[in-house]
């Protein structure tokens, strides 16, 4: 009993003044996600990494827009998004206060405009992502002529690029030189893809 009283007196008051005074945390604390839409290029790496499905993306082809969405209510503060983000658009801060008055306040969204494909006019990739890739090449010292060729390539959607590749392969007679089953496979593939795009001239 005496020991306990001595311990209590020795310890004194341990209650902190929180929330009047900020509560100290460790330097490495994983706190609330801070998002910078100006740095983000909607590459979707974070939405794939997120184990809790707090991060998601939806594409609206009609409006040519892609929406990045983050739900603080689902977030488990694991920092996987921070780990995979190539542009440091997501950083975990030291903040831990997440109370809001309305549930909708837990949602953060950002809209990104999409590049439309030069050949088929379908919106397919975020404009900022294409610009980011071009800027990387430019900084790597690629000459302006090649850079322009790359831009044409990057602003063509994957489906059209695939069809272009087939067309090129056929010109170089790589496809026509195949044995019968392989040629049939390629023909089948092309016929499936052709109706998707206005690629009538590609019919084998």
């Amino acid at each position, binding site marked *: 009993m005496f020991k306990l009283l001595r*311990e*209590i007196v020795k*310890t004194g008051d341990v209650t902190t003044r929180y929330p009047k005074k900020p509560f100290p945390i460790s330097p490495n604390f994983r706190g609330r996600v801070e998002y910078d839409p100006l740095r983000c290029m909607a590459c979707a790496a974070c939405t794939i990494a997120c184990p809790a499905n707090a991060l998601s993306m939806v594409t609206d082809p009609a409006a040519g827009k892609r929406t990045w969405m983050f739900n603080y209510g689902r977030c488990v503060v694991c920092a996987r998004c921070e780990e995979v983000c190539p542009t440091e658009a997501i950083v975990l801060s030291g903040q831990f206060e997440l109370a809001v008055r309305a549930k909708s306040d837990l949602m953060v969204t950002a809209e990104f405009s999409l590049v439309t494909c030069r050949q088929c006019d379908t919106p397919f990739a975020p404009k900022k992502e294409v610009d980011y890739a071009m800027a990387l090449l430019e900084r790597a010292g690629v000459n302006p002529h090649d850079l322009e060729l790359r831009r044409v390539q990057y602003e063509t959607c994957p489906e059209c690029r695939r069809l272009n590749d087939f067309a090129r392969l056929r010109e170089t007679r790589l496809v026509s030189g195949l044995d019968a089953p392989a040629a049939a496979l390629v023909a089948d593939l092309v016929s499936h893809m052709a109706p998707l795009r206005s690629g009538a001239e590609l019919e084998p």
Partner: protein
Amino acid sequence: MNDHVTIRRGQSHLDAIRLQYGAAIEDAEWQTENQVTVTVALASLPEVVETLYYGREGWLATIVANDERQLNGHYALYYILSMEGADRCFFVVRALVPAHKPEFPSVTPRVPAVVWGEREVRDMFGLEPVGLPDQRRLVLPDDWPDDLYPLRKGAMDYRTRPMPAAPAETYTFINEKTKTSTEVPLGPLHITSDEPAHFRLFVDGERIIDADYRLFYVHRGMEKLAETRMSYNEVNFLTDRICGICGFTHSFAYSSAVERALGIDVPERAQFIRSVAGEVERLHSNLLNVGLACHFIGFDSGFMQVFRVREKAMTIAEVLTGARKTYALTLVGGVRRDIHKAERLRILELVAELRRDVADILDILMSTANLEARTRGVGRLDPKIARDFSPSGAVVRGSGFARDTRTMHPYGAYANAPVVVHTEQGCDVLSRVLVRVEDVQNSLDIIEYLIDKMPEGPVLVEGFSYIPQRFAIGNTEAPRGDDIHWVMLGDNQKLYRWRCRAPTYANWPVLRYMFRDNSVADAPLIVASIDPCYSCCDRMTVVDVRKETTTVVPMKELERWGRERKDSPLA
């Protein structure tokens, strides 16, 4: 399969059962050097498990059922035994159950420890244990449809829940009373305590004659979720959330299981960091329980002091991992963050402070007359009952068995760590408190050792590929006992089957025997002594079957009665 295994432990057990059962032993395969899976004929399953359990010092780790119809046209049962005598290993007895005749001979009449596992297998897979005396459901609620088995492949979408198939609860609470008694239901009336559970105490006056309980009111369907939605590394963050107190140890066990299935060599430094985090978790959780023990014997000043000291353990976790709980530290192949010099020094500083504080607090606690008066001889767990049901952690160590998976089947960086497995012979609540007190001191030594001996090097390996249908066991010693994770990898970047057994699952079944012959006022104390993720009930309803009266006792009153043991609210 599993050519990477060169050392093969468990051969002596295999030879022994081969000699005894001959042709019934069909196949044996090593997953790691200390994990062997032996396929036996279904009809011989009970005898083989019994021989290994009682004849060769096997203890039950868990039972896994697996829907392998797309692989071999059968359901499979895996009885995982931890062999703790000579030739230590995990010995897994596997039996195939034909898809057209989903039943198997129950092992429960021979080895009572498997009772919960077999009841769960019936609920989740619809495999009927023939000869199992207990016909009640374990996991599924009473209003669940009869023919829907959630863990069968393609049985249901994890996001949906079927319409209730029954209008009311039909669960019957069983007992072995011989004369008329009063029934005391405890819970699940309110769930603001950690977790809900429903206890039914059969009492004569204030003496408990028998007890039964029902749990799983908050079954979250994690195994199904992991199998259907999550990739291998995402499951790490799910396992962190199995328990609010000891989640890390689950992610440690899960990652170990996947790594062992694939034969991945995890960098030594990563294993040290994992073990430090695991030990920090054991430290703060054991302190929490020592605090709760103070609370339940009415020594609330001690409770407050223990929680004040425990804050330092939480700070160590925060320095080490970036969070007080849910460390999000492990990935398959290693850990996500290293321990740098500044952090290392800070941890050592905190450990030194803790050592002083803990010594002072424990000194005060141990010299409190109330502690011994209230806990000695209360909630006795007979060693024979313990042997029959394979509990783990402080529950079994308080009854004289030195069971600790850190020394039985060393993992992480524990092989050379100064682990002291403390046992007590008292078999009562006091013994379990004393075991935890010793564990707290030992955790501090282990943390210091691991921080001091931590080798340099990488903390994560990557670039391995997942091989379908490989499987293995992961084991860790959580604060409350051993965690067992069994995983089988799939072919779609998802687990084919994941079975997780937390220690409390192994500790609940013995609680019934610990209740017997104790006063109702001691019930909350006995429940708390197994340190479940549930410590007391908000209030209890007393039903006197003879007078047909119902009395509701509020939680505060029950707690007061539990502490003071006078002015019974039942009188």
